């Protein structure tokens, strides 16, 4: 396979497709033309891109839970509950971890055991096993758009089945669903596999069906500096539109400092518009993830964290918020806990929808620095690829020019270390090989020295560990234990 950032021709796509659909018996049921017809019959309130466009226009933030269980009926019940009791605006289907690793046999066993025990033994919905028909049962039973949320490095069969099944939104990407979710899968491989997914969605678009695509913004969810996740989001956006994707939601995971978080959402939008300027007709929206790292176990404290994420999203005017639950630290939430997270979030979204974070010098400075950092990374990526973004991305990972903190993947350099500054914004303690200018390096260093001074200690790995535990222990900045 020759990997380049170029739209696949249909011949190649069809060839690969035959193979993909053969990976599991349920692949047989996929009939593209019939799927197009099916989508065209969906009412607009079940189409994600329509709902997002409307929210963007009205300047409101939609709320979305995560949720998925092993069996179809229970999954429908769960989602109906979240819609009614949680007032979720748009719905997810979280895929189980076996399916994510393409272990459809284990998923099948999990379904069987779940049926026997009458409770879900899987941590998500095994959509491949349930097949096109199973997916459509969901679509038909529910009155809101459905998105596939997973974490699957090779998500081709999953895409074929869920999209033919009537899902109108698909999360992931060749970087964001590899590096945080895999250990031994090469970037080349996932970029290639995701070109397939994007091309598939491009095909839907060419046939007049809107499928929204959402790169997974928060990555490892743990102290990811905005410019790291922005770089990845923009690369995945560019790769997607090249294959014909038209509707994009770019994501960012809350860090916790209000100014940094608002700046992050604003710059994500501004930078993406800039980088995507050459592509017509792309509808761009943003998604803000409530804090994705370790949560406090206590539910009241968790409500505090959830609410702060909701408030930040509303003030930043993100198009969508992904909502956590008061059970986050302990386990997959009950549907009640899930609805509680949604209701707390909705309360704040509604209370703040008419308020916007008014600009000030600090915000402008923060935006400026995020933009500089992101541009410096992306410039080097393009340089490394001699203008080809796919090649550039592969080389950038090898060189540590893109580098994601705390990632399990062998293909990630793992050199950078993030830490919070004295106000809780996430900075580069160790910039690894990120191609930063002296100005950027100095800025980060100064910010961390400020904190070091306050804490009477050198910024070091212990600081990072303290920061990782901090929110779970009821604070933002991991101050030395007293």
């Amino acid at each position: 396979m020759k990997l380049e950032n170029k739209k696949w021709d249909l011949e190649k796509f069809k060839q690969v497709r035959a193979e993909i659909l053969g990976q599991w018996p349920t692949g047989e049921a996929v009939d593209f033309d019939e799927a197009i017809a099916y989508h065209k019959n969906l009412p607009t309130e079940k189409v994600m891109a329509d709902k997002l466009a409307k929210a963007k226009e009205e300047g409101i933030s939609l709320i979305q839970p995560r949720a998925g269980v092993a069996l179809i009926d229970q999954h429908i019940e769960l989602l109906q509950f979240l819609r009614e009791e949680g007032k979720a605006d748009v719905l997810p289907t979280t895929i189980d971890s076996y399916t994510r690793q393409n272990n459809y046999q284990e998923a099948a066993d999990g379904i069987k055991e779940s049926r026997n025990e009458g409770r879900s033994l899987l941590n998500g919905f095994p959509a491949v096993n349930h097949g096109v028909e199973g997916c459509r049962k969901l679509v038909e039973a529910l009155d809101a758009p459905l998105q596939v949320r997973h974490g699957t490095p090779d998500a081709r069969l999953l895409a074929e089945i869920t999209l033919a099944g009537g899902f109108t939104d698909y999360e992931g990407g060749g970087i964001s669903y590899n590096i945080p979710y895999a250990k031994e899968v090469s970037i080349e491989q996932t970029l290639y596999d995701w070109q397939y997914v994007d091309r598939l969605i491009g095909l839907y678009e060419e046939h007049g069906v809107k499928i929204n695509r959402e790169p997974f913004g928060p990555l490892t969810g743990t102290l990811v500096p905005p410019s790291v996740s922005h770089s990845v989001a923009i690369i995945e956006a560019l790769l997607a539109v090249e294959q014909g994707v038209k509707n994009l939601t770019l994501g960012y995971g809350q860090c916790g400092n209000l100014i940094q978080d608002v700046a992050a959402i604003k710059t994500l939008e501004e930078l993406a518009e800039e980088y995507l300027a050459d592509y017509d007709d792309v509808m761009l929206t943003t998604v803000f993830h409530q804090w994705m790292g370790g949560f406090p176990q206590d539910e009241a404290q968790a409500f505090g964290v959830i609410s702060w994420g909701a408030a930040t999203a509303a003030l930043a005017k993100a198009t969508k918020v992904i909502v956590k639950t008061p059970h986050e630290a302990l386990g997959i939430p009950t549907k009640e806990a899930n609805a509680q997270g949604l209701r707390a979030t909705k309360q704040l979204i509604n209370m703040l929808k008419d308020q916007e974070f008014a600009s000030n010098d600090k915000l402008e400075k923060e935006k400026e620095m995020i933009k500089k950092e992101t541009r410096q990374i992306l410039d080097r990526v393009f340089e490394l690829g001699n203008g080809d973004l796919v090649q550039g991305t592969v080389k950038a990972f090898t060189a540590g020019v893109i580098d994601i903190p705390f990632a399990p993947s062998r293909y990630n350099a793992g050199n950078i270390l993030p830490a919070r500054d004295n106000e809780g914004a996430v900075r580069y303690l160790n910039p690894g090989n990120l191609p930063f200018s002296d100005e950027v390096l100095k800025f980060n260093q100064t910010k961390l020295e400020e904190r070091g001074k306050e804490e009477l200690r050198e910024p070091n790995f212990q600081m990072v560990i303290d920061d990782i535990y901090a929110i779970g222990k009821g604070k933002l900045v991991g101050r030395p234990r007293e």
Partner: protein
Amino acid sequence: MAEKKTVVMGVIGSDVHAVGNRILEEAFTKAGFDVVNIGVLAPQEEFINAAIETDADAILVSSLYGHGELDCKGFREKCIESGLEDITLYVGGNLVVGKQEWEPTEDKFLEMGFDRVYPPGTLPEEPIADLKQDLGVTN
């Protein structure tokens, strides 16, 4: 510490949660153990092979993502089959799907043959002290 004890650690099954694993590695190393970290997405065999190769004293299994119950079945038996009769086995993380009461979960994993079972949110200090005691390390 007279002689360094070796522990194998990793995250079992299809689980990719890497953060806690990284911190445990750091903490056990600092506490004077030889740490063999096989990382995430580790099948039972990989834990056992690493333990045999390094003549390890203990295996620390992490499971965060909720499939721990499925993934850990038969671990003790497989250790015994492989000749690791006396190896100390700890398991910890978010072991089951959902927020459940702790005692039944602990019992379930004790029954499976783990020597100690740790609830979500455990700080490294606790298993370090326990392991020193269980392995008879004094310092």
